[in-house]
């Protein structure tokens, strides 16, 4: 039986290592890790994994950009993606959005800004295959991870 391939894209090195060892301990998985979005994108293109764990805030390329690129590519647009992030990171996203627009946070009418929850929702909506994207909030336990992987990849 061919090993299922999983790619973990996260700028936290320890997290990648831990996930790799956990997943490999769970079943017959071949796990690759990438420490930034760009590297992760190329690894996905190369490996064509069955499941991607994607962090949101990363250097070089952000999680949602990686996701957009993957969805545009017909070879990768069906791959299930689990976004691993804290809502706190989503708040950071919002800040980045503001920085991009070059406005100070104090002067912003917050009601008009997308809320973190909604931003995640936007990401979901952008994805063509809605079911293939899940959200796993950090921190999560080994059991939660196991349950989610089992749900997506089926029994192994």
């Amino acid at each position: 039986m061919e090993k299922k391939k999983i790619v973990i894209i996260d700028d936290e090195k320890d997290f990648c290592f831990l996930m790799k060892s956990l997943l490999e301990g769970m079943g017959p998985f071949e796990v690759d890790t990438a420490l930034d979005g760009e590297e992760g994108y190329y690894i996905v293109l190369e490996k064509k994994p069955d499941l991607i764990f994607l962090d949101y805030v990363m250097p070089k390329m952000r999680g949602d950009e990686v996701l957009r690129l993957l969805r545009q590519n017909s070879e990768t647009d069906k791959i299930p993606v689990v976004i691993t992030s804290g809502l706190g990171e989503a708040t950071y996203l919002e800040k980045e959005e503001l920085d991009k627009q070059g406005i100070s946070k104090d002067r912003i009418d917050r009601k008009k800004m997308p809320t973190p929850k909604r931003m995640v929702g936007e990401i979901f909506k952008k994805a063509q295959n809605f079911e293939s994207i899940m959200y796993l909030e950090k921190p999560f336990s080994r059991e939660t991870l196991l349950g989610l992987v089992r749900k997506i990849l089926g029994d192994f």
Partner: protein
Amino acid sequence: MKIQVKLVLFLLLTIVFFSVGLFFIDQIQQKEFFTILEDRKEHTTYFFNEIFNLKGNSLDAISFDYTYWDEMVDLIERKNQTDEEAEEWAEENIGNAMETYDIQFAWVYDLDSRLIYSIQEEEEGFLKEFPISFNKIKEKLYSEHFVDFFVWSKEGPLEVRGATIHPTSDVDRKTPPRGYFLVARALNNEFVENFSQLMEGNVFLMDRLSYKDEDVKELHRDLEDVFYIYRELYGFDGEAVGSLVFRTQYPLADYLLRSKQKNFYYFIVSIISFLIFFFLFGFVWISKPLGKISKALSCEEVDQLEDLEKSGAEFGVIARLISKFFKQQKQLKEAQGQILQSEKMAAVGQLSAGVAHEVKNPLAIILLSVGSLDHEIAESDEKTRSHLKMIKEAAERANSVVVQLLNFSRSSDIKMEEVSVEEILNNATLLAKNVFKSKNIIFHWECFIQEIIIFADKILMEQVFFNLLLNAGDAIEGAGDIFVKTCLEKDKTQKDQIVVEVSDTGPGMSKEVMSRIFEPFYTTKEQGRGTGLGLSTVYMILEKHHATIEVESEEGKGTKFIIRIPFSAK
């Protein structure tokens, strides 16, 4: 010094000034009055003397005219021979002259002091002989030719003139006298009445013998409105035999005196009424409102000024100004407090977001590592397993704190939608019931509003009531009740608002606790059970919805939270 004392002093000073002024005016008036009186007295005295002298003129005239007359000389010589013709002549000439000259008595003596002839008016008492010894007079008369004096006879006072008799040719009386002629006028009632009429006053006679020194003193004394003019009537030997007195009352003086008195009474009465008026109205108009204002200011209770504020007078304006000032100060303090609270919460929110991000990644690693280790260690290694369990629980607790912090920081991100109040409360209650299913808590519903739809963030609003119910349930030890009551009310500006009351039968809390419950990180729960962010989050969320929260609590009687949500909130 109090204003009342100052006013009284001012009043007293005013009265003193008025009194002094009045005194001086009175003095001047009195001086004028006495000048007038003096003038009048002088005038009257002059008039009195003139009349008196005029009255004496006729006596002078007869005593002068009838004594250089040959017939008179002849009378004396003939009378010595007791000539009846002479008697007739005397009767005709002297007797007739008496009425003309207004005299009542006449005597003729010869050089030897013998009474030649005497005549008098019938009504008078009979005085055949001259009332005093003629020999006394003769000497003086002989040398000086004329005498005039007064005699107080048994018939009353007489004014007497005497002259020596000479022939007609000797007008200057160079030749020795041939006899003596005496005339007298009785100062009788007629005389006095006549005098009184002329003087327009009361003229009377006083006998020198019968009046005492005191009477004279009395005459000299100036009564204020009555004065006396008196003229002593000197006898032959120069001693006064009596006085003619004129007593007059000065009507103007009397009037002036009485008006002076009246003025004084008017002054006293007006001062007293002014004082009464001043104290009564001064008290009502000045002292009372001032006292109220100063009392209200000193104890900072503006409610006391309510009555005064209605007044349109200056004190009303002041009172309104003061209460407005206090109200504004109070509002300012409240607003300041709210701003401070909001700023504090916003600061905590921003901090929380940053901290949460940094904490969540390490927590993820910890939890995954624990999970991994737990999976790998031997079944029998209970000790390690229990340690791992502790690490896991601690990490989870840390995470729950981070989650709450994030909730708190995100409570300002609201997404308004149309939601049913009932639904929000139902969902929150269901969640809370689930939490407290092991506790003996009864939830009571009292809903006076149905199918009310408001604009709100459904999830955040659910969180509000869930938090409140959670607090209520936590407060109850053992068994108890939680009440949720909703109704519709009008606010101050007559706008509809939804009121939700969440109350419990817990132990309540002290005022000190009550004043701090909305502060971030303030908790009364035991270590590890509360983050102190629950009510802060509630406060933040409600603030974003323009809703308010109030707390009522009494130790031992439970706590009640009252939430007011504007109905038109969009």
